[in-house]
C-alpha cells in the first residue's frame, strides 16, 4: 500500500487522507517544498491569511463550527512565534488544531540560523503535544498521530515541526489505518458504578442545577441532544459557561442564562443555593466560581469530564465521572429511563418558584434610550433579525463579547465561536473567516469592539481574497470598554490608555477593501441598517456607534461570591465595591 514520496508530498497527502479541506497558512522559506506540493493538487484549499495568528484563529473557527480538526501551515521562526497566541487559545478552549511549522534544515538546528527558533521548545507549553520530525521515516506516522491526538480525549492543538531537508527527503508513505497512539488512549466510557451513583444523587436532589460547558459542544451534536433529553426528563434548571452556549437552547424553558462573572442573577444564585450541582464538561474556572471559599457552600457536586486533571483542580467534588460527555449523558439518560426515576415534584416546584423570583430581577436589563444605541439593544436587535437564519456568531474579547453572550440566544451547538480561556482580542475576524469558509451559505457575524477588531484587521484582505462574506458588527464605544469598566471599578475612573484614540473611519476602511461599510448611531435606524447588512451579499463592516459609558452588568466583582452580584439597578459608587484583596485579582 505504501508509496514513495517526498516529505512535502507526504504532508499534503496526509492532509487529504485526514479529510482536510481548508488549510490556513502563510508561506516562507522553510515551508516552500510543502507549498510546492500544494500547488500540484486541488483537494486541500490553501487559505492565505495575512498574519499567522490569523491562521490559527481561522482554523479554530473552522474547527469549532464543524467539529473537525483545523489545519494550519506556517513557516519557521516568526511564522511559528506568530502562531503561538492562536495555539495557546486553542489549548485553553480545547479546540482541535494541527499546526505544521517549517524548520531550518536539521544540520542548521541550534546554530541560530536565519528564521530559526526552538519551535518545539516554545510551543511545548501551549500545545497538547508537539513533534520535531528529524527522520523522513517518522513523518507519516507523526502526521496521522497528530490528528488522532488533536481530536481525541480533550481536544487541543498539536504542532509538527518539519525541517526543510526532511520535506525534501523521500520515503514510503502509508495512509492512516486506525491511527492511534501507542500509549495515548483517553477513556471515553465512564465507570457504570459512578453513573449509577450520579443518577441516584440526581433522583434525590431537591434543588438541583446542571452546569454545562464547552465539553458538551466538543463531544459532538449527540451530546447536546442527550443533554436536552436529560433536562426534559428531570426538569432540572440548566446554566452554562461561555464556551457551552448553544448546547441547550437559549429559548428553552429550563435555561437560566450564562453563569459566572457576567452571568445572570438566577444562574449564579441557583449555583450558590443548589443542593446538587451536576457539572458536565466544564472546569470550575475562576470566571465561573468567583470567590472559591464561598462557592456553592451547601451542595453536593458531580463532575463529568474527560480530563481527570480537571477534577478537584479548583473545587473539590463529591463524585467524579471521568468520560466523554456524550457517552456519560447517554448512560445517565438510559439509566434514568430504565429505572424510571422521578424527581421530587414538590421540592422541584419550590425550587423553580425560587428561581422565578431571581429571574424577576431581570439581571440582563438595561436603561433603554431613544437617542443613543445601547450596546445591549444592538445585540438584541441583531438577534431578532438573524435568529431565523442559519447564523454563526464569533466575537472578539471584552464588553461586546459578554453582551453577545448575554443577549444573543443560541439554539444550536457549534454556532458560537469565542475566545473563552485565553481571552484573545483579535480572535473574532479570523475565526469568522474560518467559520464562513466551512459554511459558505451561512450568515457569519463577528460581534466586535472597535479596539479588538484592530488587532487582526489585516485579515480583511483574507476575507476579500476568499470571498468570505463575513459581517463585522462593531459595537463602537471608543473605549477598550472592559478595561475602562475595570478602571472605573478599581482605579478611581482614571482611564489610563483605554480611550481608542485615532480610530480609522470604519466605513471608509470597508470601502478601501471593496467591502460595504455601514454606520449607525440612531436607534430608530438600527433595524433597517442591520437588515441592510444581512441583505448585502458580500462582506460588511458595520460601525455601530453605541453609548460610550455603558458598563457590562450584572457582575460578580473580583473576590466576591455568587450571591454578591452587582445588578444593573445598582446605584452606589462602583469604585467602592471591591476590597483590597479583590483588587489584586484579574
Amino acid at each position, binding site marked *: 500500500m505504501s508509496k514513495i514520496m517526498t516529505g512535502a508530498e507526504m504532508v499534503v497527502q496526509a492532509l487529504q487522507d485526514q479529510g482536510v479541506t481548508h488549510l490556513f497558512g502563510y508561506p516562507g522559506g522553510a515551508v516552500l517544498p510543502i507549498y510546492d506540493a500544494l500547488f500540484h493538487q486541488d483537494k486541500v484549499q490553501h487559505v492565505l491569511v495575512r498574519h499567522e495568528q490569523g491562521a490559527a484563529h481561522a482554523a479554530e473557527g473552522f474547527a469549532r463550527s464543524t467539529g473537525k480538526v483545523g489545519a494550519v501551515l506556517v513557516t519557521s521562526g516568526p511564522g511559528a512565534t506568530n502562531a503561538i497566541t492562536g495555539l495557546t487559545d486553542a489549548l485553553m478552549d480545547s479546540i482541535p488544531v494541527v499546526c505544521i511549522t517549517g524548520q531550518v534544515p536539521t544540520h542548521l538546528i541550534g546554530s541560530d540560523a536565519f528564521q530559526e527558533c526552538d519551535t518545539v*521548545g516554545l510551543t511545548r507549553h501551549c500545545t*497538547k*503535544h508537539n513533534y*520535531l520530525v528529524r527522520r523522513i521515516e517518522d513523518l507519516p506516522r507523526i502526521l496521522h498521530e497528530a490528528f488522532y491526538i488533536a481530536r481525541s480525549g480533550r481536544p487541543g492543538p498539536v504542532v509538527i515541526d518539519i525541517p526543510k531537508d526532511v520535506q525534501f527527503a523521500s520515503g514510503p508513505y502509508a495512509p492512516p489505518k486506525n491511527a492511534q497512539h501507542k500509549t495515548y488512549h483517553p477513556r471515553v466510557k465512564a465507570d457504570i458504578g459512578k453513573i449509577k451513583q450520579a443518577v441516584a444523587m440526581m433522583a434525590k436532589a431537591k434543588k438541583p442545577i446542571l452546569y454545562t460547558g464547552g465539553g458538551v459542544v466538543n463531544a459532538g451534536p449527540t451530546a447536546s441532544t442527550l443533554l436536552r433529553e436529560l433536562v426534559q426528563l428531570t426538569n432540572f434548571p440548566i446554566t452554562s459557561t461561555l464556551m457551552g452556549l448553544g448546547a441547550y437552547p437559549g429559548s428553552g424553558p429550563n435555561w437560566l442564562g450564562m453563569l459566572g462573572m457576567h452571568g445572570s442573577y438566577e444562574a449564579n444564585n441557583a449555583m450558590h443555593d443548589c443542593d446538587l450541582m451536576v457539572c458536565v464538561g466544564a472546569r470550575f474556572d475562576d470566571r465561573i466560581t468567583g470567590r*472559591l*471559599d464561598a462557592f456553592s457552600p451547601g451542595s453536593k457536586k458531580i463532575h463529568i469530564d474527560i480530563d481527570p*486533571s480537571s477534577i478537584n483542580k479548583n*473545587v*473539590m467534588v463529591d463524585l467524579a465521572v471521568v468520560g466523554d460527555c456524550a457517552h456519560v449523558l447517554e448512560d445517565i439518560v438510559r439509566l434514568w429511563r430504565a429505572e424510571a426515576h422521578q424527581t421530587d415534584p414538590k421540592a422541584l416546584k419550590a425550587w423553580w418558584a425560587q428561581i422565578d423570583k431571581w429571574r424577576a430581577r431581570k439581571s440582563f436589563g438595561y436603561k433603554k434610550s431613544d437617542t443613543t444605541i445601547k450596546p445591549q439593544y444592538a445585540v438584541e436587535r441583531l438577534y431578532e433579525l438573524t435568529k431565523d437564519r442559519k447564523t454563526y456568531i464569533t466575537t472578539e474579547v471584552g464588553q461586546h463579547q459578554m453582551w453577545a453572550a448575554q443577549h444573543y440566544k443560541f439554539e444550536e451547538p457549534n454556532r458560537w465561536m469565542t475566545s473563552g480561556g485565553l481571552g484573545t482580542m483579535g480572535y473574532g475576524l479570523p475565526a469568522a473567516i474560518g467559520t464562513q469558509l466551512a459554511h459558505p451559505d451561512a450568515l457569519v457575524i463577528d460581534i466586535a469592539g472597535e479596539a479588538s477588531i484592530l488587532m487582526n484587521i489585516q485579515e480583511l484582505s483574507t476575507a476579500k481574497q476568499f470571498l468570505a462574506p463575513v459581517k463585522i458588527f462593531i459595537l463602537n464605544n471608543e473605549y477598550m470598554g472592559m478595561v475602562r469598566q475595570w478602571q472605573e471599578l478599581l482605579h478611581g475612573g482614571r482611564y489610563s490608555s483605554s480611550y481608542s484614540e485615532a480610530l480609522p473611519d470604519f466605513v471608509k476602511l470597508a470601502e478601501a477593501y471593496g467591502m460595504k461599510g455601514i454606520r449607525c448611531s440612531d436607534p430608530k435606524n438600527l433595524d433597517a441598517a442591520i437588515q441592510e447588512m444581512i441583505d448585502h451579499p458580500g462582506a460588511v463592516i458595520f460601525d455601530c456607534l453605541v453609548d460610550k459609558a455603558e458598563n457590562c452588568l450584572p457582575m460578580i466583582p473580583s473576590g466576591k461570591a455568587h450571591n454578591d452580584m452587582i445588578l444593573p439597578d445598582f446605584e452606589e459608587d462602583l469604585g467602592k465595591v471591591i476590597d483590597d*484583596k479583590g483588587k489584586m485579582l484579574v
Partner: protein
Amino acid sequence: MNAQAALSPYSSSAGKTARHETHVLSVLVDNEPGVLARVVGLFSGRGYNIESLTVAEVAHLQGLSRITVVTSGAPETIEQISHQLERIVPIHKVTDLSLDNAFVQRELAMIKVRGKGESRTEALRLAEAFRARVIDATTESFIFELTGAPKKIDDFVELMRPIGLVEVSRTGVAAITRGPLTM
C-alpha cells in the same frame, strides 16, 4: 505552594487539607526528545515543587525511561500533579509510591572532605559507621561514596560539615515498590 496563592480569595481552603507531604512519584515515559522538558516544564509552569528528580532509560528495546520525582505539597496538590503528568502524551504511567508507602528508595552521594591530622581520622571513623566508601584520597582530602535513603545522606553530610566538608554531589532518589507487584 507560594504564599500569594495561599492568600488569594480564588484559592479555596474548603475541603482541602493544610497538610504538607513529601511524595515519591514514579513516571514511566517514552524515551523521546523533549519528554524530560515536558515533565520539568509542567512543574515550573504550574508552580509545583521538585525536591529531586532522576531519569534514566530502563528498557532499551521498548524505549522506556523511568523518571523518579520527589515532590511536596498538600495531598490534593499531589493528586493533581499525578493527573497533570498523565496528560502528557508520551507518559505511559504515573504511580504515587508514597500512597501505600510500600517502597524502597535509595540515593547515591559523593562527599568531598578536606582536612589534616585529627579531623581525617574522625572523618574515616564516621564514614565507617555510615558504611561510606572512600573512592578517592589525597594527603589532604577524601571523597566518600554513600548510598542510602536521603535522610541518611543528609545526616552524614551534617556530620562532615564541621570536619571539613567542601563539596557534595547527589544523584537524587531512585525508588521501586516492595514485594512482587510492579508499578
